[in-house]
């Protein structure tokens, strides 16, 4: 009845309950939740579990270190069809020097006719980051501990479920839709309004990040042109239309209708998110010879990969 993966998850839950002594009806409800979860039966997914995470077992890597053992913890991993369709093709860069120049060095670029304007907005955003957002989020960092900040981030992420779910539907990804519904149900109840992520930690159900920009891309619309919006950051014409579309699906706009409170909630979410990603933008800039081009290309490649998934 159950596949290998389901069995493992059940075993973990079983052990977990023996440890914590949870009543058996919880066990039952977990089973039903899992039976309802479409992602558990998705073929070709791999499973792994982290005993230390699940069982509060004192197997932290740091404990090993304290005992003088430097070996990292082994990760249990079961590989089925390990490489999925999202695997990029092996490109045919010729190893010898005899290649057709024109066809082989073709560049895959995003069209950027607004470059001068975009560059101006890029340096505006850069200043905004270093002068306002970074100091604010660094201060916030010191006041609010990291687990709490992750809870806030998870809450906002969970709230945006309709955007991901509906866009899964629009692209005909029924499994993805089921996954999102399942995650929402588990995380809103067991995960206390979505602040924790038991769907991933206990059930290993990964979310599907879909948005309207990806739906448009799925149906063949290219990014058209690159736009680096002030405050909002890198985008394209397609993703800007997508963003506007997603606003209609964002529950935050229906829960918090007053403009100033809505904007404060969004601003707070941004600061919270940045506080968890301190250093990412800095390292992009550090690695780049031209940070504007680097960010533009990273955005383009990242979105292309998201659409392919």
């Amino acid at each position, binding site marked *: 009845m159950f596949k290998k993966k389901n069995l493992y998850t059940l075993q973990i839950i079983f*052990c977990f309950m023996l440890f914590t002594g949870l009543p058996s009806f919880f066990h039952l409800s977990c089973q039903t939740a899992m039976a309802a979860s479409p992602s558990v039966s998705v073929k070709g997914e791999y499973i792994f579990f982290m005993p230390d995470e699940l069982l509060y077992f004192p197997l932290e890597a740091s404990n090993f270190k304290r005992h003088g053992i430097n070996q990292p913890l082994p990760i249990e991993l079961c590989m089925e069809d390990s490489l999925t369709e999202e695997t*990029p093709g092996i490109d045919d860069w010729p190893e010898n020097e005899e290649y057709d120049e024109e066809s082989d060095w073709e*560049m895959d670029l995003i069209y950027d006719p607004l470059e001068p304007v975009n560059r101006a907005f890029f340096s505006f955003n850069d200043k905004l980051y270093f002068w306002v957002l970074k100091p604010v989020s660094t201060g916030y960092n010191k006041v609010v501990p990291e687990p709490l900040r992750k809870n806030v981030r998870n809450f906002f992420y969970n709230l945006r479920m309709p955007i991901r779910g509906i866009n899964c539907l629009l692209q005909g990804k029924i499994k993805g839709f089921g996954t999102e519904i399942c995650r929402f149900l588990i995380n809103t109840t067991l995960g206390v309004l979505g602040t924790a992520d038991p769907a991933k930690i206990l059930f290993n159900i990964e979310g599907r990040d879909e948005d309207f920009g990806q739906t448009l891309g799925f149906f063949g619309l290219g990014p058209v042109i690159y736009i680096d919006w002030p405050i909002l950051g890198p985008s394209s014409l397609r993703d800007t239309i997508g963003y506007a579309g997603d606003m209609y699906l964002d529950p935050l706009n229906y829960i918090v209708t007053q403009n100033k409170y809505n904007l404060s909630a969004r601003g707070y979410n941004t600061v919270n998110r940045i506080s968890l990603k301190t250093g990412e933008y800095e390292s992009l800039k550090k690695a780049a010879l031209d940070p504007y081009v680097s960010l*533009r*290309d990273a955005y383009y490649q990242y979105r292309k990969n998201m659409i392919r998934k």
Partner: protein
Amino acid sequence: MKSAYLSGIAILFFIAAGISSASPAGELTEQIRQTTDKIISVLNDPCMKGPDKKEEKINLIRKLVYTLFDREGVSRRVLARQWRKLNDQEKKDFIFLFSKLLEQTYMDRIDNYSGQQVAYIGEKIDGKYGILKTKILSKNDKDIIVFYKAIKKNSKWLIYDVSVEGVSLVNNYRTQFQSIIMQSSYDNLIKTLKAKVNKPHSGKDNTKG
């Protein structure tokens, strides 16, 4: 108490079951894993902690990383058309400078390593080219998918591109370098590269590019 003891045994059993059911990894995975494990063990080594050991640690890691990468292949792909216009000395200079840039970028961050685990998901081989899929596991956040593209040279796999969540390192640098070459010249690219490499902490004041 007894039930805790029993479940402890059960857990150990499941861990063992998990290991035995993992399918045997391929040659590419094994080669990359060996070197990566060495690097991780250097990073975790308590004898290597501390500022006085930093130089030694960096040298050790540099040696290991150099055996992992096809540095010429990376440079050739990054420069694309321009590569053929260079003479041997210029090629050598470029490889040196570009390796230095990457090293400077990533070596600074080795102190940030906090025991993240890498899961080797699988590999795909096509002739002498291969792709390795790995996942950087994190406890509360989304896992990060990293692809390594490698080429087999003298029965040894060498990496020529890394892509993180779909963003390829080679493509990103090629776009930047192409844009600089198109706007000015190759000489100017080298000048910018040299300035960047000689100025270790240029993260903040290089907004205009």
